[in-house]
């Protein structure tokens, strides 16, 4: 499994793509495989405050519901409304069209996240 090298990763299998003070957030290929077919996505409202370790929304697969976490702290400035009609984008393109939300962060918000190589190692150590 190869992870895009342009972004950072959390231990809860979200990715964060930094562009200035705006971070695009999604879940990883590994996470979408674990979830299975996604059928419903519940995202935070624009303007909501998100932070690591605090549930920001939910992703429902056919069989189960999983919480979504933001890997960074900040304010939600946009959510991926395409997921409302096409939740399967998360399965098809977790690193692309299946992104979840954009968060405006303060400096240093990505501290503690892993780069692609470190995430790869983390997955391997977890036995995946």
């Amino acid at each position, binding site marked *: 499994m190869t992870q895009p090298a342009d972004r950072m990763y959390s231990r809860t299998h979200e990715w964060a793509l930094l562009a200035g003070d705006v971070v695009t957030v999604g879940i990883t290929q590994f996470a979408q495989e674990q979830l*299975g*077919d996604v*059928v*419903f996505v*519940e995202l935070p409202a624009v303007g909501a405050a998100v932070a690591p370790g605090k549930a920001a929304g*939910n992703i429902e*697969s*056919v*069989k189960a*519901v999983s919480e979504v976490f933001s890997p960074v702290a900040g304010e939600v400035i946009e959510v991926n409304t395409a997921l409302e009609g096409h939740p399967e984008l998360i399965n098809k393109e977790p690193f692309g069209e299946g992104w979840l939300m954009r968060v405006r962060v303060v400096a240093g918000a990505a501290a503690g996240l892993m780069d692609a190589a470190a995430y790869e190692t983390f997955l391997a150590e977890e036995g995946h």
Partner: protein
Amino acid sequence: MTHHELLRTPLYDCHVEEHGRIVPFAGFEMPVQYVGVMEEHRAIRTAVGLFDVSHMGEIDVTGRRALEFIQHVTCNDASKLTPGRAQYSGLMTRRGTFVDDLLVHKIGDHHYFLVVNAANKDKDYAYLLAQTEQFDNVDVVDRSADYAQIAVQGPKAEAVLQRLTGTPLAEIKYYRFVEGKVDDEPAIIARTGYTGEDGFEVYLDPVAAPGLWRKLLEVGKPEGIMPCGLGCRDTLRFEACMPLYGNDIDDTTTPFEAGLGWIVKLDKGGFLGRDVLARQQAEGWKRKLMGFAMTGRGIARHGYPIWHGGKQVGLVTSGSHAPTLNRALGMGYVPVELAAVGTQIEIEIRGQMVAAEIVDTPFYRRAK
């Protein structure tokens, strides 16, 4: 949870070969999915798929008083069975509730073959043994280790299975079975299933099961046969509103409350729980298993509260996105007076009230 070592079915290696995702279920390591729940679900609805259901329990009831015994412990009328016919029934408590739901196959006048839920097998077996104390000449034997079970389900199931058996499958009607050969191995071939589609359940020697499994995948290729996991087994049975023990029925629910009054035969004579069920028949029952569709955004899941008029009135027993119908549906118990189709209810989803409406069941019915 118990910490016993998990069991494997005779098909475990096949699941690993096919990259099944293995999860613990009812004490077994079982595949929950191979390529994905939606795709496997679609294969069963439109073509054909295979399930390993070897974890299910098989129990033989034999002896001169076998029928009398079956009549005593179940609510349906087994005297209506002739050899080669099967019946859906309930193993009853004295309170008229379910110890389990099961299939009763009549092999011969003094031989019945019961198929029970994997999670309940030990409980059922102990319960049946305890009931034999009042019956001389009845033997109850747990045969679960002697059988593997492969379910071949879907509109193309007959065509595919026919390639591996000389038994004319078209002659086996729904809920009937024959003892024949499949892939040259002795097998019970039953036209039953838990998907809401046509199909067969094949019981055979565990040693022969992996060979049959691989052959079926081979000969079913033109139809696009797929190995299917427990994930889609649940969404398929859910769309067809077939109850799942532990979710939709259990030892607190009666067949009447579960909408299964058709398996209660009060006129067959005495049986466990009959007095309670006769009283319900005469006086009515208080709650009813109904189906609902989410009209607001969200998916109901097992255990979520059902609200009506500002009060909690019940709990969701099963809920899922229904792949064939492409909408979020659920089932649950509500007071009978609220169970009418069209009633507006709310489902509490993680603290939020989401609108839903009671709809007709089953959600899915195959075209005849």
